[in-house]
């Protein structure tokens, strides 16, 4: 990787910058050559896109603060309407120029006012013609705002006649941004994703001081081996690495193995990581719960995730109602007679489950059914006689409130209410036990 050099910036700054942004040297050198010297006009707009956590925001921020270029950094998710966005930009401009003085609140409704106030603010900042960078993070939100915001920002240099460059950062490609009538095309730049070697290098930088770097690298290797197929997100991997390291070190701490005993460490950590994939990765349980679990050394089977099916306790008839609803949703009407009228003695529920796999109705989702059909199926699957009391009907309505069933159509249909079952097969299986 070439060293960063640029005649306009002092070499010490550049060296420091290089140490802060590993594996991104070529992108930074491209950016530096585009920025040029401080006074030079740069491109009016730059569009940077790349995967989640490929370092776009981080590199941009470090670059601008290390080299101390005048900039304004705004996240478009935080300031989601045009008014909030424009006011924030102007406030940041004001606050960086006046230092510790009180900043008076700025009112800016339209882009017209923004351009006027922007010219004033830039003049008052004594920039001496240095390029001002406006960085808009998560720029895909700009598409949701008013239609003239995005084209106006792309042309801001032309509209305000000042030395300003707008940088847009996003995950989504430029083709999906372009407005219908066309606009001023920005300079697009791609931040490539990290390869597995890069990920290893970056993650190994965070090793805690008690253990050697090799030990930590071996741990990262194992972690990447399990998780690399599923996710390449740097932030998630860092989170997982931090959480599971204590468990990995346990054998060493307990004295059972030393640092080089890779097989033992692997046997210890492997089921743990697999469990982590199902729970912490999916955010089913929080990281503090996970750490507590590690300390107690409890059975992994006791984990109660967010979507665990054992949370819901239903009364006796409600369970039957739900199962009947599931059957009604996924079976076509003509098979009802075959399934429910012939009496094979004890009708077990597992028979019904197997037959469902074959229908392609599974793939398309649940179908709505009328109330009468639900009751008919209910009578046939419950062994003893069920009277159509208000109890049963109220249980149906409570299932609707729990969003396990949903009502289809308006309230005042002539044929009676129609419902749809909104739970999956696994849920039904869990209830049927």
């Amino acid at each position: 990787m070439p060293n960063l050099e640029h005649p306009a910036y002092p070499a010490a700054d550049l060296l420091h910058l290089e140490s802060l942004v590993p594996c991104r040297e070529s992108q930074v050198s491209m950016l530096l050559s585009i920025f040029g010297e401080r006074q030079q006009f740069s491109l009016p707009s730059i569009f940077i896109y790349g995967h989640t956590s490929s370092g776009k925001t981080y590199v941009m921020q470090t670059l601008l603060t290390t080299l101390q270029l005048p900039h304004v950094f705004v996240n478009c998710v935080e300031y989601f309407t045009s008014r909030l966005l424009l006011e924030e930009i102007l406030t940041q401009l004001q606050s960086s120029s006046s230092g510790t003085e009180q900043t008076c609140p700025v009112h800016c409704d339209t882009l017209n006012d923004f351009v006027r106030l922007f010219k004033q603010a830039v003049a008052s900042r004594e920039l001496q013609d240095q390029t001002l960078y406006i960085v808009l993070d998560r720029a895909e939100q700009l598409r949701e705002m008013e239609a003239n915001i995005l084209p106006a920002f792309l042309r801001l240099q032309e509209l305000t006649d000042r030395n300003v460059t707008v940088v847009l950062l996003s995950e989504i490609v430029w083709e999906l941004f372009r407005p219908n009538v066309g606009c001023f095309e920005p300079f697009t730049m791609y931040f490539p994703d990290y390869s597995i070697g890069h990920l290893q290098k970056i993650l190994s930088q965070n090793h805690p001081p008690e253990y050697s770097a090799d030990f930590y690298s071996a741990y990262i290797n194992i972690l990447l081996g399990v998780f690399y197929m599923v996710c390449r997100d740097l932030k998630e991997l860092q989170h997982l690495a931090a959480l599971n390291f204590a468990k990995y070190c346990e054998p060493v701490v307990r004295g059972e193995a030393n640092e080089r005993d890779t097989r033992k460490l692997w046997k210890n950590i492997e089921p743990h990581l697999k469990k982590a994939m199902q729970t912490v990765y999916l955010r089913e349980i929080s990281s503090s719960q996970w750490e507590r679990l590690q300390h107690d050394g409890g059975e992994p089977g006791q984990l109660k995730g967010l979507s665990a099916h054992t949370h819901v306790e239903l009364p006796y008839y409600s369970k039957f109602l739900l199962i009947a609803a599931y059957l009604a949703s996924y079976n076509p009407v003509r098979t009802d007679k075959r399934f429910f009228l012939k009496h094979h003695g004890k009708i077990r529920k597992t028979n019904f489950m197997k037959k469902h796999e074959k229908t392609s109705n599974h793939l398309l989702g649940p179908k709505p059914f009328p109330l009468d059909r639900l009751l008919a199926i209910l009578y046939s699957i419950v062994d003893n006689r069920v009277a159509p009391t208000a109890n049963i009907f109220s249980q149906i309505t409570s299932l609707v409130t729990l969003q396990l069933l949903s009502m289809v159509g308006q309230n005042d249909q002539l044929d009676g209410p129609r419902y749809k079952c909104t739970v999956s097969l696994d849920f039904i299986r869990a209830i049927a036990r």
Partner: protein
Amino acid sequence: QHRHLLELLRRTTVHGESNSALIIGPRGSGKTTLLNHVLKDLREMKQVTENLLEFFMKNPFLSGLLQTNDKVALKEITRQLQLENVVGDKVFGSFAENLAFLLEALRRGNRTSSCPILFVLDEFDLFVHHKNQTLLYNLFDISQSAQTPVTVIGLTCRQDILELLEKRVKSRFSHRQIYLMNSFDFKEYIKIFKKQLSLPAEFPDESFAQKWNNNVQHLSEDKTVQDVLQNLFHHTKDLRSLHLLLMLALSAVTVHHPLLTAADLQEASRQHRTDSKANIVHGLSVLEICLIIAMKHLNDVYDGEPFNFQMVYNEFQKFIQRKAHSMYNFEKPVVMKAFEHLLQLELVKPLERPSARAQREYLLMKLLLDSSQIMDALQVYPNCPTDVKQWAASSLSWL
């Protein structure tokens, strides 16, 4: 066209004629540049400077992007004419009265004859979408009536702009249109390329400028460079994209590498033309790639009809059970998380907004990638397991 416009403006300012014109041309064909040029020439002509209104010193044009509303436009006009103190607290019944008042005020301020005013409206097509098109109506109205010499020039990139104007506005417009098309051929394109890259004569370091210009001459005769330019020329004749390409190439010039080479231009061209979606696909994890391949197969089988997550998961299961040796059978929620990541990257788009009633797994979606894009991306995908690649290639042997 330059002469035409210059003549038009000169007539307004010198002879006091009112006029209106539209400059139409695709993006990047130089409309604004043309106008600025003409204005500069105008200011240099002696007889004009005495008549023209003083506020031309700055950059006074009304842009469709900024003035989204007629009221805003009017305030902007007031401000640029520096008549705020005159307008003050007056309340106007209608837009036309307001505008007439402004022009009256101007007239009184100067000599007996009124000053010619030039209104430049950029992004003209956006003004057309205002309510009732009042601003346009009034401006054109004034340009037709004989009191103040006013010229209205609109810049737009839509060819059908005349159809968008209302009837009463269209009748007041003089239907003068100036078309700007990039109608140069490839030889002229190369000449433009040379001219852009050459350093001007005033460059301080004489010998370097000489070397640089020689290099540029050499480059423009090089075959590979001509190929690169030909590619770009076939794609778009726009000068702005040429600029971008040259910027990319020039950014490789450093102190150690002072002269531009053909390799630089080729590298720049390659970067310029990369398929951005292929770049994104390059960064996906293996599980997500499998999901995309499953969706591609579904598209092939069902001929492009929308699918939902459950179908994709089924296909994936079929692959795992029958052929996969390197893929571990992931649980359904993990696959769901990968699928949602694809949604976030907008490679898959739902057909309708997700509502609270329908379950997320059954929402219908469509894939925004082409199958040839997917196959190309797979070729360059690093460390792709071979059975995944083979699954992608074989399409119908699965059912």
